[in-house]
């Protein structure tokens, strides 16, 4: 019975990676071999070369990297400040404000594409990378996560730092931020994965190569009407997912733990 279960678990695992393995096969062989499995067939990197030149992949890569970095940097600053306020300042209207922040956990920017597009048009930010990132920079999830973490840090540590002459911001920077490092790491991994993969809002708000991130570029490139053959699409898809995939394979444990923390909230 145990043996049977082990076999089933393995079978499911194989089924689960099959689409990726298949893409790997298709992308490293000539298009004519796409459905013709022959282990001795010659390998080729031609498809990757073609994909790289058919679509402006270098530009899409750059856009995604800029986008992800910009969002993460802004999130870290904004969420740290807000998390600190909620954790340590007993200001008027705090609970109501916190409740209003949590609304974003349910009403994600994806749902509000129509109105946010209008806002971006008024701000003149349509088709800019800043326009893609702006709605995500104040992240309710980040604020919540940091508030919880800051709350677990003993107040005495802050008081001691203040006695030593640390300012309020100094205490945040020297006491709270270093002690919350694991939370920052978890949050950063989730944020990077989310925005590397995000699609709908970037699609709506961009309309030129110079701003489109990888996912949008990939969608245009992979659309059946683009007429690009399957082997090249596989190569392009693998290229787009590879940075995240490689990072995941290297740091599996951190990734899974971060995603878990992110979900449980």
């Amino acid at each position, binding site marked *: *019975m145990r043996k049977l279960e*082990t076999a*089933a*678990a*393995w079978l*499911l*695992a194989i089924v*689960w*990676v099959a*689409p990726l393995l*298949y893409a790997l096969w*298709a992308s490293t062989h000539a298009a004519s071999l*796409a459905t013709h499995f022959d282990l001795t067939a010659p390998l080729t990197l031609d498809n990757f070369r073609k994909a790289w030149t058919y679509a402006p992949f270098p530009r899409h890569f750059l856009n995604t990297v800029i986008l992800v970095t910009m969002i993460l940097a802004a999130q870290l600053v*904004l969420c740290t*400040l*807000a998390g600190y306020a909620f954790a340590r*300042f*007993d*200001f008027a209207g*705090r609970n109501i404000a916190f409740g*209003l*922040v949590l*609304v*974003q*956990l*349910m009403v*994600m*920017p*994806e*749902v*509000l*594409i*129509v*109105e*946010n597009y*209008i*806002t971006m048009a008024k701000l003149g930010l349509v088709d800019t990378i800043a326009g893609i990132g*702006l*709605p995500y*920079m*104040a992240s309710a999830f980040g604020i919540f996560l940091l508030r919880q973490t800051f709350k677990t840090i003993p107040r005495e540590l802050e008081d001691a730092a203040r006695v030593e002459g640390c300012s309020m911001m100094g205490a945040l920077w020297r006491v709270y931020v270093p002690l919350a490092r694991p939370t920052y790491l978890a949050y950063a991994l989730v944020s990077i994965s989310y925005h590397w*993969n995000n*699609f*709908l809002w970037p699609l709506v708000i961009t309309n030129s190569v110079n701003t489109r991130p990888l*996912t949008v570029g*990939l*969608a245009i490139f*992979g*659309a059946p009407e683009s007429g690009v053959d*399957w082997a090249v*699409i596989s190569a392009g898809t693998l290229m*787009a*997912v590879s940075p995240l*995939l490689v990072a995941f*394979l290297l740091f*599996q444990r951190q990734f899974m733990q971060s*995603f*878990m923390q992110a*979900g*449980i909230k």
Partner: protein
Amino acid sequence: MKHVYGWLLLAPAAILLIGFTHYPAAATLFDSFFSTGTVVRPSRFVGLDNYAALGSDPIFWKVLWNNLLFAGATIPTSIALAMLMAIWVNDRLPGRALVRMSYFTPTILPMVAVANLWLFFYTPQIGMLDKIAAMFGAGSHNWLGDPGTVLWALSVMTVWKEAGFFMIFYLAALQSLSPELEEAAKIEGASRWYFFRRVTFPLLMPTTLFVLVNATINSFKLVDHLFILTKGGPDNASNLLLYYIYQVAFSFFDTAYASTLTVVLLGMLAALAIVQFLLIEKRVHYR
């Protein structure tokens, strides 16, 4: 002073949150009472006209029904699979790390890439599914082009994408269960199935409820694959609410009606938020 500092620290995040969450949510509701303005006819107050149009829009009912079918097909399946995966991976399984990794990998892929990968499984004749079917002598089938199969084909893909994500929550829950439970059950001679049914499954209930809410939210906001695979077709057979909102707003340029549809979506998310809130209240005694 603490009031000033508190608000000052909060201000940058608050401005962005108001600007891109609260204001647009309110504006959506407001706009749903107006007509879409054009060059010749400016936007004007129409009361509940947009909602009346919504009620008599067969596509709206179709996408709502599709959303329910899609949720009904994907959620129980991915939860059951996630539970099974977690139990397997939590056990002393040979090559456990590798198996766990395979299950989780789809989670970190963008839906657009997933759709690209799966397109080839579903393509008629040259697709993998048809090749396999041909081996058993079955004929070719256009899985994504047939209104009868398209939603199910997309559901299978979504289960593949999501089960591994839900697995990690079950894994965490399983690891927090006391090992003495299983030992006691062994001494009592309980079968594994009996132990799962009477001990593990009930103890995993809070996790299941949590995953259930999250899976439901996802089923409403995950539409990326439609852009690649079907564009909501054929004949809206695979169209989902958020994709329809996108079409109405950015292909038909009817902002007012798109806002009306968004109000419906927001209403459903609000209902889910209330459910989640009640569940968290309930969970307190368990922790």
